[in-house]
């Protein structure tokens, strides 16, 4: 009764989990960071914006490094997938990279701009860059899920350069924007105080409602994109799994709303928003596994030779826990509420 026929637990599967882990960590870490960038648009006061930006200034760079690991790891462990997916998603990826440039430099430039127009321009770059990067990430995910056209014999992408643009991919794009804003708002509930915290609290719950609606829409839409997904979720006993995941999403969402409004917790809303994202990610994994290019190329077809996988795994097993350790330490050093007077002057 295994989910996947002919499954065997090997290095390739380990690598699929390592890459998936890197992408998940990226999504939740840069997710709140990008979401915070979009929420910038709603906070007009300079002091509030300073506090928001300072809450992520020491860590944004580490957050984005997980994106590099996702890309670099994919090239190392699944070079064929890297070579098929990136040309297929050419436009959303390049736009995302350009958007990340604008928001990344805004962290530094905004404090160097004299004020007035140039500061406003970097604030706009931060907002626009965050929004476009989020949208493109969602579009890329949607475009991958809906499938890409490949020439298997030539080991090459065979579609056009606008194939990624569909109602589905756009829907996922908007969903990711809203979800990231939820992460950003709950992060700020945790990291700020006073009026700003109160506004974030009132923003978080409508964002949560819309996020859950999007999760529902995309979950119901996905099985109809490709037959494999349908069988995976609705075939036989699998329907029970689908129902279970759906209920879990609703339960977490309910806890999050109670935590936000009734208990008025500071840390729990963020933790629960992270749980919601993690659950969606696991669901996504269930849909895709064992394909890395749904539903054309499996992880085993795309895998690098065993020696390549071993070479990198030695380092990954040793270094990723260390990285998680000092990343956690950096968050610990800058824990607690943001001091409105600290940071750049």
């Amino acid at each position: 009764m295994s989910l996947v026929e002919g499954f065997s637990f090997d290095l390739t599967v380990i690598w699929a989990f390592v890459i998936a882990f890197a992408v998940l960590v990226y999504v939740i870490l840069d997710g709140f960071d990008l979401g915070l960038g979009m929420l910038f648009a709603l906070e007009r006061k300079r002091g509030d914006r300073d506090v928001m930006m300072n809450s992520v200034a020491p860590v944004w760079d580490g957050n984005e490094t997980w994106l590099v690991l996702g890309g670099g790891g994919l090239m190392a462990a699944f070079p064929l997938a890297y070579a098929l997916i990136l040309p297929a998603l050419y436009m959303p990826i390049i736009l995302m990279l350009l958007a990340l440039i604008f928001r990344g430099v805004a962290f530094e430039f905004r404090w160097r701009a004299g004020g007035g127009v140039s500061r406003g321009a970097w604030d706009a770059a931060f907002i626009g860059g965050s929004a476009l990067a989020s949208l493109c990430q969602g579009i890329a995910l949607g475009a991958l899920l809906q499938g890409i056209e490949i020439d298997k014999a030539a080991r090459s992408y065979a579609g056009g350069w606008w194939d990624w643009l569909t109602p589905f991919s756009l829907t996922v794009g908007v969903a990711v924007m809203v979800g990231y804003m939820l992460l950003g708002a709950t992060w700020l509930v945790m990291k700020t105080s006073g009026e700003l915290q109160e506004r974030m609290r009132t923003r978080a719950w409508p964002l949560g409602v819309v996020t859950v609606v999007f999760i529902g829409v995309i979950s119901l839409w996905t099985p109809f994109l490709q037959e494999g997904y349908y069988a995976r979720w609705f075939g036989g006993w699998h329907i029970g799994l689908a129902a279970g995941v759906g209920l879990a999403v609703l339960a977490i969402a309910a806890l999050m709303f109670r935590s936000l409004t009734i208990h008025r917790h500071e840390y729990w809303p963020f933790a629960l928003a992270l749980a919601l994202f993690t659950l969606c990610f696991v669901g996504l994994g269930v849909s895709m596994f064992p394909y890395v290019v749904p539903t054309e190329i499996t992880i085993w077809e795309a895998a690098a030779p065993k020696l390549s996988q071993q070479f990198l795994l030695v380092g990954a097993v040793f270094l990723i826990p260390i990285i998680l350790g000092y990343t956690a330490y950096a968050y610990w050093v800058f824990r607690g509420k943001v001091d409105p007077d600290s940071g750049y002057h």
Partner: protein
Amino acid sequence: MLGSFDAVLLARIQFAFTISFHFLFPAFTIGLASYLAVLNGLWLWTQKRRYLELFRYWVKIFALAFAMGVVSGIVMSYQFGTNWSVFSDKAGPVIGGPMAYEVLSAFFLEAGFLGIMLFGRDKVGPGLHMAACLAVAFGTFFSAFWIISVNSWMHTPAGFEIDAATGQFLPLDFWQVVFNPSFPYRLMHTVTAAYLTTAFIVGGVAAWHLLKRRRSGYAATPATRTMFSMAMWMAVIVAPVQIFLGDLHGINTLEHQPAKVMAMEGHYESHPDGAPLYLFGIPNDETQRLDYALGIPKLSSLILKHDLNAPLAGLDTIPDADQPPVGIVFWAFRIMVALGFAMLGIGVWSLWARWRGRLYDAPWLHRAALAMAPSGLIAVLAGWVTTEVGRQPFTVYGLLRTANSAAPLDAPAVGATLVAFIVIYFTVFGAGTYYILRLMGHAPGAGEPRLKDASEGPVRAAGKTAAHGDKPERSGAAKAGG
């Protein structure tokens, strides 16, 4: 109208543009990270105020340059797939691992400790703050180690076999892959270049403030003097080392990529009994001749073979289809070498001025150092152009042609993104450069505000806002013992 060739050419231009722009930042920050670690160490050790002032001065510039390096670097990690997908599929099993090691051992280390280095001095205490500075400095070195290893493998591939069915390069021995024949030379040459780049930028900024103070009749601040002195020591010590390393690298290239050296030297023809060193000439690929050549007989054989009469083969021994474009390589190489010797000249000049006791009172030396401020950046780019264009027409030397490496993209897609990259890079990084220059326009000294202007700490501008000029500097100098 636009065929597949144009898409490849556009992809090459795009990669050349994004990588060149990107590399300017690490070329500067690799050296600057070490400089900051040294400054912080000297401050903790000697408690001389000027080192802390210099640390605070340069760390702000570092933060800006590093941020630009990060965002332009993320682009690079995806350009391999978006524009060079066939290359990635084929070479990924070999170079993907070392590239991922760069992320794991370097990028995370830098990113994880940068926040503490920039904002954490008061939160973690001086010991851990120093450790964070060292972590960032080592991170930049590990980064260079892995990416130079990958790049060197593309020049001198080793430790692999080629899969007959897929055409993929499959690793046989990763030790040989990582420590491929040109790697040690290229790594030393590149890291040393980064140190020189930083030294000349630091020296140029110091020279600017020495000149400015001289014109206004004030003595330069101790911090400015220290900065100039340290930069000039670097120039005098590192420039000759770099010339020596460059020579070793060239001899290594002659062994593994002779066609590149022929292009660098402008040797279209073989020279059976001693080849001349051409100082000048106009390479003419049509006639396969170096027009208006001006050369020193037999010197090239002496440099490359350490024998005046050693024979050197020319491009006439290489099939046309395997030759790199000579003009670009020939000139880029000459620019790099000329700047290297100019750096040595500044170093020697500074030594002489120092010996005469006029290091801080030598306006012509300061003017020259100011003019040479960007020389490292230019030399580094020229060096990369030499080696990368010299590898053409291959991506993996001798084995995978550039024309067969590109992604199956339409030329308009590549062209559109190329334009976007050019416009955005010049706008965004132009603004960043402007902010850096503006920071450099202020002299370092007492009252140097910290990145994190907390309310406690030994130095604070608050409460003595009127004393930003010379007074506290003099007291700082007195405390530091002159």
